[in-house]
């Protein structure tokens, strides 16, 4: 009887450990795929900002293809954003734990808002506009 209880305890512990490892690994995988998506987005955005000065449509299309971002680890996301040639500022709303990332060329500005606690970007993708209206 004691032996059976001991075995059941070991199995439960092993199962819990396996589940935790699986969740951690899955969270890491989610963050990795999210960060890869952000990297790709920033690369395409850089290319667009360097050549498209007169039309907003490609920016809306780009955002529509990539948004929203979910499950990114915030510091790593900010690091990728900082690698952009067109990064202008990153501000942090402590109360909401939200980052506002601002990219801009001389003509077009694009905003990205990321809620670090909820690990997701704001859903709207119509965030590109003219620097001077």
């Amino acid at each position, binding site marked *: 009887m004691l032996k059976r209880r001991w075995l059941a305890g070991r199995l439960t512990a092993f199962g819990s450990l396996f589940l935790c490892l699986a969740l951690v690994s899955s969270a890491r995988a989610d963050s990795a795929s999210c960060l890869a998506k952000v990297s790709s987005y920033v690369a395409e955005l850089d290319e667009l900002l360097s050549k498209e*000065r*007169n*039309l*907003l*449509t490609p920016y*809306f299309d780009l955002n529509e293809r990539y948004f929203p971002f979910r499950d990114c680890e915030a510091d790593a996301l900010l690091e990728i954003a900082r690698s952009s040639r067109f990064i202008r500022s990153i*501000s*942090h*709303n402590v*109360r*909401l734990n*939200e980052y*506002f990332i601002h990219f801009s060329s001389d*003509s077009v500005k694009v*905003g990205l*808002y990321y809620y670090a606690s909820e690990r997701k970007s*704001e859903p*709207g993708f*119509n*965030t*590109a*506009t*003219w620097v001077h*209206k």
Partner: protein
Amino acid sequence: LSEKIFLTYSNATALPYQGSVLGYHVVLNYIDSNGKHHTLQGVPEQKFEHNIDKLRVYLAEEYGSDGTNNTDSPFKRLRSPEESRDDNVSLDRPYTIVAEDDDLSSRWALMKDFADEVNSIGYEYRPTSQNSNSFAGGALQRGGFLGPGNAFPERFDHQLVFDPASGETHSYRVPGFDMPLSNPINTATPMPFPLSALAPPLVPAN
């Protein structure tokens, strides 16, 4: 009263080569109870950098087209980008207060819905008759701030603007503000209710 909805302005139309301001572009602003600053505005999809091009396309769309063909505007569509920042905006530039209340979030949500509908339905941009100010007027109407029984019962192409630098109130010309959006491009998009529909008047939150 912790939340505010107000209008700010930028020079919208200057005479090419001469530079006089003929009108102002309206930006809709909302400061929420977290101090977060949201803006909504209408913009053309296509922009022209050189004065000669601006003049040419202005004449082509406003005088060469009667608006019946809703896909021939050189400016393409009217779009409504949205921005949110945590920049503690101060009212140090000319502004018009629309509303101050403990909670204006539902009003702003209606205005954002209007912007989403404009983006998905599509309206061609016309420089003076269907422009950023037409969008602003429509959004305010949807938010319940314009129309009968409200602080602004009618849509005019002028706004009273307070200039904090001089302490004076001026009348700014905002061409297109009085013109409702018309002739939608994507008529297949279901509209929850007409763009000109009014929201109920603002009810104090106490």
